[in-house]
């Protein structure tokens, strides 16, 4: 489809597939609300469908019926390739110019110079841990979730750690191997040849013995940290924030091996029924207020640098805390493809999907 030429009147509604916590209307905490005012201003009623994994987002968009999706890098190009999203006309989004230069032409939403959406926010998969179990000393390595060991509280980590229930987590294992098994020659955790891939799977198989249940849903992970005795896991700042707000003995850290992360793009469905409202939302989503509020709520970094200053909720130190300066160290999610830049032939994503099911299943 051709991008919209000019902005028309709002259609009265817009529906968005989003990560939990990305689009808030003050229901959990009334200070965090960047929907109510938008609805009042534009007359576009916002409905949100939360998704827990990138695969789920792709499936929802394939099925249709939505206008926008906050797709991470491991979903965005698949959506483009599947022609589920349409190019956008950046002229209709006045705030486009305010976007962080590092993101303006990022590969996960730009193909052949054409933009397929507006950057939303980005962030890191931090290591969340229980401060009691670690005696207030932050673990400095991902080995606490990958290798069996006795934690500072004197008990084994077995059964007390979690891993993400999504195939993209294989990259976290690869990232860990980049430090601990340099001889494998992994350059990019999303581009693995057969040997590198096998090593990552082996690491994960070992991890299977430590993990009781994989985390799939942000809220359930929170529950597990509270009721199931989980003390360490890769996680999102979002959960860290919610748990600390509840005064749980929880903190997070950036381990030395580095970190994976996501940079999300608000993309427009090819058959969007409410394109005008969708454009209005994209513009709205780039306002420093929204960017700052989301970042404060979820623990992300805004895509609009202006949001780093003067946002009440995020505070002026928020961007730094959430990793503004670490942009280059974060290995952002992207879809593993057979043809890869670093070494030509790589293991494609569909194998990641089926093998990760196997790993969790005990294979």
């Amino acid at each position, binding site marked *: 489809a051709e991008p919209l030429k000019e902005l028309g009147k709002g259609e009265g509604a817009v529906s968005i597939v989003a990560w939990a916590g990305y689009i808030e209307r003050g229901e959990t905490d009334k200070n965090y609300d960047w929907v109510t005012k938008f609805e009042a201003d534009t007359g576009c009623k916002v409905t949100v469908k939360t998704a827990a994994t990138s695969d789920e987002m792709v499936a929802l968009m394939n099925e249709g*019926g939505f206008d926008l999706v906050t797709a991470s890098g491991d979903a965005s190009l698949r959506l483009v390739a599947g022609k589920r999203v349409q190019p956008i006309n950046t002229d209709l989004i006045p705030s486009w110019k305010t976007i962080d230069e590092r993101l303006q032409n990022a590969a996960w939403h730009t193909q052949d110079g054409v933009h397929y959406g507006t950057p939303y926010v980005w962030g890191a998969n931090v290591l969340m841990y229980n401060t009691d179990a670690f005696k207030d000393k932050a673990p400095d390595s991902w080995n606490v979730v990958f290798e069996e060991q006795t934690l500072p509280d004197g008990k084994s980590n077995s059964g007390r750690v979690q891993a993400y229930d999504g195939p993209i987590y294989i990259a976290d294992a690869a990232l860990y191997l980049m430090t601990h098994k340099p001889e494998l020659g992994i350059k990019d955790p999303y581009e693995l040849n057969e040997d590198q891939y096998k090593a990552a799977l082996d690491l994960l198989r070992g991890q299977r013995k430590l993990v009781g249940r994989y985390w799939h849903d942000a809220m359930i992970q929170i529950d597990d940290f509270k009721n199931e005795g989980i003390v360490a896991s890769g996680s999102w700042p979002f959960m860290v924030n919610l748990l600390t707000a509840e005064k749980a003995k929880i903190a997070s850290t950036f381990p030395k091996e580095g970190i994976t992360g996501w940079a999300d793009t608000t993309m427009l469905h090819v058959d969007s029924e409410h394109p005008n409202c969708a454009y209005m939302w994209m513009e709205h989503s780039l306002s420093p207020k929204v960017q700052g509020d989301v970042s404060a709520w979820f623990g992300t970094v805004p895509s609009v640098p202006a949001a780093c200053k003067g946002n009440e909720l995020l505070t002026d130190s928020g961007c730094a805390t959430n990793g503004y300066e670490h942009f280059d160290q974060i290995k952002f999610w992207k879809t593993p493809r057979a043809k890869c830049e670093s070494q030509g032939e790589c293991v494609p994503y569909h194998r990641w999907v089926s093998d990760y099911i196997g790993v969790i299943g005990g294979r």
Partner: protein
Amino acid sequence: MRSDRGHRAPLVLKIAAGAGLLFLHLPILLIFVYAFTTEEKSYQWPPPGFTTQWFAVTWNRPDVWQALGLSVQVATIATAIALLLGTLCAAAVSQTKFFGREAISLLVILPIALPGIITGIALRSAFSLFDIPFSVWTIILGHATFCVVVVYNNAVARFRRTSGSLIEASMDLGADGFQTFRHVVLPNIGTALLAGGMLAFALSFDEVIVTTFTGGQQSTLPIWMLEELIRPRQRPVTNVVAMVVVLVTFLPILAAYYLTRDGDQVAGSGK
């Protein structure tokens, strides 16, 4: 039953039966308990405090009412359809012999004998094949499909028990087909239909899986609960709703019991 008259149940049996009933009920009591907890984000044992505020909160939550409204609407219509289809099927099967009669009982049982997820994705893929948009009717379609069997089972059992000569007696006494249906058939299968209808309603009212696939973005009460339970805002609200549903349904269940007690079929067999 004659053999058991005057005989006491063996102690082991009593204990096993009692323990079984307890097993069925303790978790439900827990649901009740957590309708009164002061903690709202997640459950914790023992509950930190007691409050009745969640009843007021629930009352004032429009999303509860919306979901409830949709569920009642869906369950009512699905039950009505199931009553119609189930009765027709039962009447045809029990009043006449025809080729393929056996196949019909299989056909009716199939939607409940196959897991709900299969009914769900089958209907869903048919909807997408024919570009049928999700609506209340797509939910109803799914629910009515597996509800037919409970009505059918109750009605067939009653038809079997109701002597065929009653219908002949009525015709013999001068009543034509319609009069016979109104004055003899309907009153005789009435309580069975009521019991079957109640079960159908209950099945539909509590169905999650099929609804997930046929509901699109609409929230029936169970779908609302699922959302609430996974992404809790005020968890006890879910418990309040569940508890009220149990309490409100208590009377109809009891009524169904007394209505079908004389029959060979307790309301509920065949769910």
